[in-house]
């Protein structure tokens, strides 16, 4: 099922709207009532949007405030004075470049590796016949129901035993595949037409070639959505990197900033600059491909 959120289909309200505007040709007063109503909707929308954006706006504006402005009462949203000091300082006070690099490597490699392994497993489950496929599928559905917090202690213990705590491989390896990803892609693969791959199979193409050359290109939208899911989930994750890193240097951005905040509560200008820089890639990424991402979420609930 494809869901377009910016849809051009006629909405119930538009009907009412056009009916009213037809009527309004006869009487002027309804025109103004109607447009007032319309404007109220727009204003309500803007108020809601700004309220939702308040912490992001506050963060963005505060990042440009000098310390003296931040502690001046009453606080203002807009900076009374603009400085770039915080952005310069954040790289020195926090091992920010290291955190950034850690986060990119962690979220980036988890996303890529997981997309590969998820899609391979999903291909087998959706397209290949083998004994035990039902068992594997049920197992994956069961794993979907497990809160990952349950595995935290044994997982930490295990990785600690083999010396992988405080390391990027330790962060990455347990996330190299994902039950949700497998299930999500399986559902998508099932919805793809079989003609192309049957033709390839008749031509003697190997299953790997069918998977890589036929199915994967067709699955681009689903892979993009899942990729963004994986990327933002791991980029944003706090608990997992928090327990896996003993110090700020080996943490990711959310864990590192939280640890830094725990030690230096009051340096808000610095923290806000760091937070803004940490959020920026995900926000930009999202704005660029928001339509397919949002449509992907919508379909997971319906499929």
């Amino acid at each position: 099922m494809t869901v377009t959120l910016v849809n051009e289909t006629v909405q119930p309200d538009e009907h009412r709207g056009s009916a009213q505007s037809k009527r309004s040709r006869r009487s002027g007063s309804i025109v103004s009532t109607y447009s007032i109503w319309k404007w109220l909707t727009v204003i309500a929308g803007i108020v809601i949007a700004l309220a939702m954006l308040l912490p992001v706006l506050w963060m963005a504006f505060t990042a440009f405030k000098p310390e003296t402005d931040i502690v001046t009462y009453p606080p203002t949203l807009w900076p009374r004075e603009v400085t770039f000091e915080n952005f310069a300082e954040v790289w020195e006070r926090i091992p920010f470049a290291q955190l950034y690099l850690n986060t990119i490597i962690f979220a980036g490699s988890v996303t890529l590796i997981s997309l590969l392994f998820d899609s391979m497993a999903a291909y087998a489950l959706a397209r290949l016949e083998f004994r035990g496929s039902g068992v594997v599928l049920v197992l994956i559905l069961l794993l979907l129901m497990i809160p990952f917090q349950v595995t935290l202690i044994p997982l930490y213990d295990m990785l600690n035993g083999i010396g992988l705590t405080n390391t990027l491989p330790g962060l990455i390896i347990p996330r190299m595949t994902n039950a949700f990803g497998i299930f999500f892609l399986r559902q998508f693969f099932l919805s793809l037409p079989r003609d192309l791959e049957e033709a390839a199979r008749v031509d003697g193409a190997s299953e790997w070639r069918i998977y890589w050359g036929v199915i994967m290109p067709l699955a681009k939208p689903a892979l993009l959505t899942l990729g963004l899911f994986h990327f933002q989930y791991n980029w944003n994750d706090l608990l997992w990197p928090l327990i896996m890193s003993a110090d700020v240097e080996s943490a990711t951005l959310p864990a590192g900033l939280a640890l830094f905040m725990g030690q230096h509560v009051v340096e808000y200008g610095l923290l806000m600059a760091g937070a803004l820089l940490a959020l920026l890639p995900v926000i930009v990424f999202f704005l660029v491909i928001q339509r397919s991402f949002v449509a992907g979420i919508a379909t997971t609930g319906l499929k």
Partner: protein
Amino acid sequence: MTTLESTRLSETVRASRRRGRFARKQELTAWLFLAPAIVILTAFMLYPMVQAAYLSLTDYNLIRAAEWVGFDNYIELLQDPAFWNAFWNTVLYAVVVTPITVGLSLALALFLNRQFVGRAFVRTAIFLPFIVSLGIIAIAWTFLLDPNIGLLSYWLAQIGVVTEQGLLSDPNTAMGAVMFVGVWKFVGFYMVMYLAGLQSIPEELYEAARLDGAGAWQRFRNVTLPLLSNQTLLVSVLALIATLQAFDQIYVMTRGGPFFKTETIVMLIYREGFQELRFGYGAAISIVLLIFVFLLSMIQYGYFRRKQVRY
């Protein structure tokens, strides 16, 4: 392929042979495709889960080797005020945040389902909290609520809501504050699910209702709401499961305080497991969490199986 050789065989034998060989080959291929996923899921998900169940029956604590203690951890748990505090905090968080999130996301979806200038902007703004890191943005919320220099604290003071210690340090308001941030974070995500549901409702149904003289409320009550029942069930279960796992904003904003007023189950697992290093006891708490989430997920799975009210 050795076609020359096989021409000697009769048509039927050849066909069945090929099918047999094909099936066997495909079976092997399938397991090769599954191998990486199965190895990783077994090693880093299934095995740790079994291990958690085992550890919960020991007094393991990272320094001392695990010693079997039977159900001692669970007995201690039931008598531990810290556990019951975390348990009831989690229940409170869940029963307050879930209905508010679901109701608000439906209201926002209905609002955004109408056409108006700037709609795309509003939708993006509502959805944005879902994609940013809760752990990071919670720093901004903490700052907004700072009693001395926080903008939101200042605004609240202007309308007469004054707390001397600040909302996050006041035992009466801290939970409310982290709940508020929890709703703020997820409302856009569920709104998108509702929007998808709204857009799949055929316009003719509204036409018919209108012809029958149904007002806006009646159309909502008798057309929209019943046809959104799938979304409502799914969103409710997802929201409920998410609330049982609340951690990020609580860790950043209050660390479970003041006076453990915001310590949830996951916060307690973190504290017992990774600060007190009581792995056995922490594992027992996480098994309790597992049981709750698993039961709720079964309901969700039942929903997927039962599937759709069709129209």
